[in-house]
């Protein structure tokens, strides 16, 4: 079974002024890859909807690859750790 890791799907500037619409579009995008809205809700970690558009979700590498090829996706960024300095 493939391992899932958190990835950030970065979509750039917001396409909607309404944050709710933005979040809905994120769920739709995720559902189109993972198969259903229910599964998408389980995998979704964050919806970025105010300052820019994007979402963080748990993906396998092959799912991340599929998302990266969707229209509107600027980049898929693997989650990474940072440290206080």
């Amino acid at each position: 079974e493939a391992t899932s890791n958190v990835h950030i799907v970065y979509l750039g500037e917001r396409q909607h002024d309404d944050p709710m619409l933005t979040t809905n579009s994120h769920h739709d995008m995720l559902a189109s890859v993972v198969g259903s809205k229910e599964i998408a809700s389980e995998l979704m970690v964050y919806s970025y909807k105010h300052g820019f558009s994007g979402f963080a979700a748990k993906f396998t590498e092959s799912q991340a690859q599929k998302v990266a090829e969707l229209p509107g996706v600027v980049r898929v960024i693997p989650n990474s750790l940072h440290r206080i300095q």
Partner: protein
Amino acid sequence: TTRSWDFLGLSAHSPVNTLHNSSMGDGVIIGVLDTGIWPEAKSFSDKGLGPIPSHWKGVCESGKRFKAKSHCNRKIIGARWFVEGLVAEYGQPLNISGNREFFSPRDANGHGTHTASTAAGTFVHNVSYRGLGHGTIRGGAPRARLAIYKVCWNVLGGQCSSADILKAFDEAIHDGVDVLSLSIGSSIPLFSDIDERNGIATGSFHAVAKGITVVCGAANDGPFAQTVQNSAPWILTVAASSMDRAFPTPITLGNNKTFLGQAIYTGKEIGFSSLIYPETKGLNPNSAGVCQSLSVDNSMVAGKVVLCFTTMNLGAVRSAAEVVKEAGGVGLIVAKNPSEALYPCTDGFPCVEVDYEIGTRILFYIRSTRSPVVKLSPSKTIVGEPVLAKVAHFSSRGPNSIAPAILKPDIAAPGVNILAATSPLDRFQDGGYAMHSGTSMATPHVSGIAALLKAMHPDWSPAAIKSAIVTTAWRNNPSGFPVFAEGSPQKLADPFDYGGGITNPNDAAQPGLVYDMATDDYVNYLCAMDYNNTAISRLTGNPTVCPTEGPSILNINLPSITIPNLRNSTTLTRTVTNVGASNSIYRAVIEPPFGTSVSVEPNVLVFDRKTKKLTFSVTVNAAHQVNTGYFFGSITWTDGVHTVRTPLSVRTEISQPYIDEN
């Protein structure tokens, strides 16, 4: 901060300076992405503060041991926490037993409380750390408000996930913060595409596009070249310096010679006691005297002071102190590479740091004396002229490994032995205060200054604020002596150590000219960094087409110029905006880097009521046909009142280099 703000010229006792001219940052909101906050600290009292700024749209969230109604006030106006990204990554819940962490904005680590109080804490008088560094602690903008975004957690010393950081950016942009302060860096080893992976570059791009100044630490991987992080051109990246304060600790030998080490030792004087260096017989007699692998036993050490040598930093001092203390020793002298960041040893055990020169002289005394003895006296605090500020050993250095033409770090600020509020759970705390060192501590100094500038000039862009800070920075100490950079060996600091220099907030408030930028100006950078047109258009929200020939990254309107590969001749342009008196005439003063000739056209800029912006070109010619390392110079515009200095770094690269030369 009991000394740092005076060192930077922002004394509260001086009636006229940027602190007072900006109403101490009143009305400005500083967002701090860190380990949270200890709201009971006196630094966060809201006594005397007016209503919450009207542009605030954020929230204060309750959680474990954090009640929104009582712990948020007119100082801490917002507090939230973001942990889902870290939890999802680890795949198991965080260990929150034994007060090690709280699912709330409450700070278990202390780092976030320290940085928030340095940026915007109110005045707290009569503070010291075990009697040292006595004075008043406060933030750079004592009347600014704090919005706390807890994104770093007490896991392995303080970790934060980029998914959580990005969410905090998203919310902070919505909430209406004016300045964002991030004392956060990436884990080692660096990703080569750190700009993409770390989330900070991405989040900060949108924050800056919406007028929010983003201040980040350069990281603590110095003194090695190309270790600077948070290097996107829209970020204000901060290196750490010391200040004009030291904690000399007398070491008196039996021959009456006294050397001064450095320590945080405030216990009783250790009267004359036997002094030993653990030396073994055999081919490597020094092996037993290496601090991190000290080999001693009770019979050898009981009642004695031990000398050891190390090439490591903090960890070696603490581990050696533990070993000596355990074996019944009464003190430790550590000879190490000079660096001024100090921490006390456990339970007030006297551990004094000296450089190799003094360590070697003490060793020679031991070897040449039948019964060597030593006296260790408590540390004292000295401030002012005898002490010169330096760029800290640990502070990450340029050049920028992602885009060498973008000078990083931008600026330096005090980040060594900074006394500020902390969590009572901080293992180094003394009465709720701790002395910490790092680019983390330097960053909120600049965030506080950015808040003061924002209060004075609400219409200035983040680029204008950054330009004002970079072009007015000090390259010399107040005594007139140049700033050095710690390392092996120490050297005169250059722009890869401290960017423009050490921040000078009083001149930054009235810079005369600024190198301003808007989102469109960053498009050249994005094009040069191989983003395609579609990606840039989505990023900016506007249709964008990169020029077919490819824009020159050298023309980005930064307040610095770095040419990493000068062949024969290069010409670049800059545009300055007059933010001083309408009718002004500025003349260029050129300090060419060694082996180059530099000309500026025009070399006189005449501003009037109608002419606010003027463009000039800079041509740099290589004088010799050789590959060189970097040489440094400057271009300074001056009208007799203002001095607008642009650091200039040039590396000649006639043929493709076979080795990196920094």
